[in-house]
């Protein structure tokens, strides 16, 4: 079985996983996104009223809508989920191909291990430091810093897992597989914790700290008038919580389906190959 077979199966498994995650997102993400956008619009109006009352000239018309909310919330969401599923399917297929036959695991188990490692490093670990946020949570001015910091977490996690595996392999002969895996886990958690403590929280970025004082996050605080009275509330904590739980669950679903479908497809192909070798006519066809 050659790399081509694995790569094609990675694409198929990724697309299936993306479709499943799309349906999940339609049900569980969109209500939170809508609530967040409603908050953002209401806050925008309150800020404008505040500025007008203070004597400022209103800052010209509303933002132009490039893609309608209806499209964003359905087709656009689906395009994004399926595309990311295919992207991750390709990367899982590559990692799987490099490990196939080199570790003592049945193919479908190895597929699930690879997908689990992807979930841990590419999503779950970065999420701990920089969790997924709905619209309105996140400042336009810090998008560059936030993107760079997020990618540092993703790449760092991948490197830390590689380091953890290397250490585990090193000590396995002396302390056995079980203990070696535990040591690897400790190495991964420790390295990740050090990186997280070194990287700044989003609220600590200079622009945010100047505006609101040092904070952990960019989650909007209540809007106050000159007298300090709250005229618009802070971001709804429950919306934020539900959005993040749903985001985490969607990624677990995406990677889980990807690993299961990919493993099943690979084993089916391998079983067919076995039959084909016993009957040369069949394999030539």
């Amino acid at each position, binding site marked *: *079985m*050659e*790399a*081509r077979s*694995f*790569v094609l199966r*990675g694409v198929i498994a990724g697309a299936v996983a993306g479709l499943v995650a799309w349906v999940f997102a339609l049900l569980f*993400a*969109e209500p939170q*996104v809508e609530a967040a956008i409603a908050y953002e619009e209401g806050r925008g109006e309150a800020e404008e009223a505040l500025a007008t009352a203070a004597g400022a000239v209103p800052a010209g018309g509303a933002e132009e809508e*490039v*893609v309608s909310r209806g*499209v*964003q*919330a359905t087709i*656009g*969401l689906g*395009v*994004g*989920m399926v*595309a*990311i599923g295919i*992207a*991750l*399917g*390709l*990367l899982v297929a*590559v990692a799987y*191909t*490099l490990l*196939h*036959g*080199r570790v003592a695991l*049945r*193919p479908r188990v190895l597929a699930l291990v690879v997908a689990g490692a992807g979930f841990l490093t590419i*999503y779950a670990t*970065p999420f701990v430091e*920089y*969790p*997924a*946020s*709905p*619209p309105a949570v*996140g*400042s*336009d001015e810090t*998008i*560059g810093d*936030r*993107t*760079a*910091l*997020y*990618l540092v977490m993703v790449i760092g996690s991948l490197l830390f897992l590689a380091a953890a595996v290397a250490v585990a392999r090193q000590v396995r002969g002396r302390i056995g597989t079980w203990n070696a895996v535990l040591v690897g886990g400790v190495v991964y958690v420790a390295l990740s914790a050090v990186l997280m403590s070194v990287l700044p929280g989003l609220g600590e970025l200079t622009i945010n700290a100047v505006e609101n004082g040092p904070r952990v996050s960019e989650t909007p605080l209540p809007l106050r008038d000159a007298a300090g009275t709250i005229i618009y509330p802070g971001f709804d904590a429950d919306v934020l919580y539900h959005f993040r739980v*749903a*985001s985490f669950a969607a990624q677990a679903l995406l990677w889980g389906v990807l690993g299961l479908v990919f493993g099943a497809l690979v*084993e089916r192909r*391998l*079983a067919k190959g*076995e039959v084909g070798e016993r009957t040369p006519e069949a394999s030539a066809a």
Partner: protein
Amino acid sequence: MTTAGAVARAKATAVPASETLPWLISAVLVGLALYYVVGIDQGAVSVFGDTTVLHELVHDARHFLGFPCH
């Protein structure tokens, strides 16, 4: 020996890197390009110029997948 598991294990032989390299490299490049387009482009940096059509199309997915967005 006729179980699917036994068959799968028997066939689980290592793939030589030399023959597979073109497939693996293309898969990594396409995978990373898609990851970039869905997650990052037309946000902090943009290869498709100064429009936001792509960003706006995948906007909800970008937020939900945990990428930084406005």
